[in-house]
């Protein structure tokens, strides 16, 4: 390739010394070049996002069973899968759990993450060391955290209950074994996992805010709280949107953490849309029903994405 490049240039230069460039052709070439750069991304998106997405929607209207993998035939069955899934009491439960899980996780992760980010944006000894220690949960794979937390939260032999016991408070809390507590426990673990991400992004956002603004506020005699509310938060808004949207996307489709912690139990108390899709598709091998739940998840995410784009557009104006 390199030699041919050099070889091709020299004779070309000699044979057509002064042909005038045609502006229309240049424009066309430029467009072609531009498309050349865009093409890989478009191909990639179509192949790995467009195709599965369309396939998933189609699949939700098909009777897609293990037989389909051999015969390739998946007869369309109208809205059967959809009505079956919507009639299932478990679906309503899972939808509710997903909403509670997502809202609870986001709220917890964001508030604690923001508090830590503000805390670490001041200078004090060991600041860097502590900050990197707080990043640890981020480095641990989700499944590993799930397994470790399952042990920590064990009602009788878990470390957390032993610890609470020595303090004399709630030593026998049924963290993962009572249907009333399990969802809350799962949310708490997810908050623990999500704090570093929120903290890092918000910390970065805080560094971007010019120091002068805070100085000016101080000169005007604003209290720390007032400065935070009227200067820090508004300046942080774009970063906040990013954090919340990314957080939402990763939280709403939660699967691995719940499988590792409770397997959706006890008594379906921690079933979410994610675990339901998994159960339908890969345990019961009813791929049509699994696709329906998957599509509902996509719809929820899409609605949120539209709101996000709207918010960004008005901000731009």
């Amino acid at each position, binding site marked *: 390739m390199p030699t041919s490049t050099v070889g091709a240039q020299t004779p070309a230069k000699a044979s057509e010394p002064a042909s005038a460039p045609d502006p229309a052709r240049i424009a066309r070439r430029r467009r072609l070049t531009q498309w050349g750069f865009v093409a890989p991304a478009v191909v990639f998106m179509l192949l790995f996002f467009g195709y599965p997405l369309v396939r998933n929607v189609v699949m939700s209207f098909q009777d897609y069973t293990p037989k389909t993998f051999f015969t390739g035939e998946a007869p369309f069955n109208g809205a059967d899968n959809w009505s079956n899934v919507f009639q299932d009491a478990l679906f309503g439960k899972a939808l509710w759990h997903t909403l509670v899980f997502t809202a609870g996780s986001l709220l917890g992760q964001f508030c604690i993450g923001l508090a830590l980010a503000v805390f670490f944006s001041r200078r004090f000894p060991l600041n860097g060391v502590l900050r990197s220690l707080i990043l640890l949960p981020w480095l641990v794979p989700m499944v590993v955290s799930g397994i470790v937390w399952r042990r920590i939260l064990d009602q009788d*032999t878990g470390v957390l209950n032993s610890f609470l016991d020595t303090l004399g408070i709630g030593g026998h809390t049924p963290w993962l074994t009572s249907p009333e507590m399990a969802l809350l426990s799962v949310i708490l673990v997810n908050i623990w996992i999500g704090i570093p991400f929120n903290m890092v992004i918000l910390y970065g956002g805080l560094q971007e805010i010019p120091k002068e603004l805070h100085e000016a506020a101080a000169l005007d005699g604003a209290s720390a709280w007032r400065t935070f509310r009227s200067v820090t938060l508004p300046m942080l808004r774009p970063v906040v949107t990013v954090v919340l949207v990314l957080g939402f996307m990763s939280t709403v489709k939660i699967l691995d953490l719940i499988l590792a912690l409770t397997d959706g139990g006890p008594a379906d108390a921690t079933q979410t849309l994610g675990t339901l899709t998994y159960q339908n598709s890969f345990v019961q091998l009813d791929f049509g029903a699994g696709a329906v739940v998957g599509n509902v998840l996509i719809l929820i995410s899409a609605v949120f994405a539209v709101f996000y784009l709207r918010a960004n557009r008005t901000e731009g104006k």
Partner: protein
Amino acid sequence: MSKRFTSLALTAHPPAAARRGRGRSRRVVAPFTAVSVLVAGAALAGCGQQRDADTYTVMNSSTDESYHRWDAEAMARCGKELGVTIEQQSVPAAQVMTKALRMASSKSLPDIVQFDASEMPTFADAGGLVDLRTLGLSTDDIPDGIVDFGSYKGTYYGAARSVNTLALFYNKDLLDQAGVEVPTTWAELRATAQKLTRGKQYGLALSAGGAEDGVFQFTPFMWSNGGDETDLDGPKVVEALDYWKGLLKDRSLSKSTVNWTQADVNDQFMAGNAAMMINGPWQVETLNSDTSLHWGIAPIPVPRAGDDSVGPLGGAVLTVPNTGDEAREKTAGKIVACLASEKEQLTYALNSWMVPANAKAAAVWREKVPELDSLADQVAVARSRTAKLGAGWSSVSLALQSAFQSALTGQSSETALKRAQQRATSGN
């Protein structure tokens, strides 16, 4: 690569002839387009797989180092005997089915798949398996129960090398200290467990987790009591579940039972947190790693003296998927026959502590490991989970998990099982 980027940078130079720019921009575009085509091509080509004439592939779930090694050794011996190379491809147990289905749709199935026996009917039902009898495998010397275990709708699709079931494991030292005998009936089990429950130590540990593990553990209680998976809200099943609830109420079972897998149960037993446990022979290797632990094994107690202790038959079966290549399927059949031969079964069973499927091999095995005698007795009367429901087992299993978890966390057994039966019959 670096050259390509250099030429890209040069295009920015303004005075050079535009035509030169064009030449370069094309050269730049070409690689990018090539990359996209390659990506697309690779994605599509990944589906098809070329088969090597003398290499046969076995897909199994032997992801544990020891099991993987035992299987590799057995395959090497059989490969030598038959003059072929046998490759082992191990994937986690939960992925065997979905992976096999994906491979079926891309026509790249391995020559032999080892399915968990409860999953085999689903694959057979889809038309994915070859009748082993037509490949020349014999079922002489294999007890009827185990032939049924590897059959779906009367056709013999899966050859089991070894089978297992659940039994009652007990800590000899703890039982001696408390001065109690090994229980044989439900009443005895309840009383013994109560006596053994003190401080941080529970009398009994079992798995009632929200997965197949828990259902597997519930079946001996359901079946020994005369209950049936086709009638989940029948009085016999309700009674069995009430028995579990009773153990929990006595505090003989930890409340964490609903969150434990069978492996967790074994950990609790080994840590001395439980004096007895319901578990299977696949834990023996781990149990023996702790020489200070003196454990014994007995059949799972029955509702009334004289009842049969009916446990679930567990284990994997070797199957030959329907690839359409008859010559290869024939050889695959020979490989299965070799791996499931009397000699190989015995080797495998002695390694893995499971019971050989072949009656003759089982007789030899009994002499060699007399301490596991009760397991062999229990296997002889054990029942297959899918014998009645076939491919319909998975929805019943899911409904049942939810039911016993609801019951153990407060609901009445009757309400929970009524709901389960509804869910199982409506399919959602």
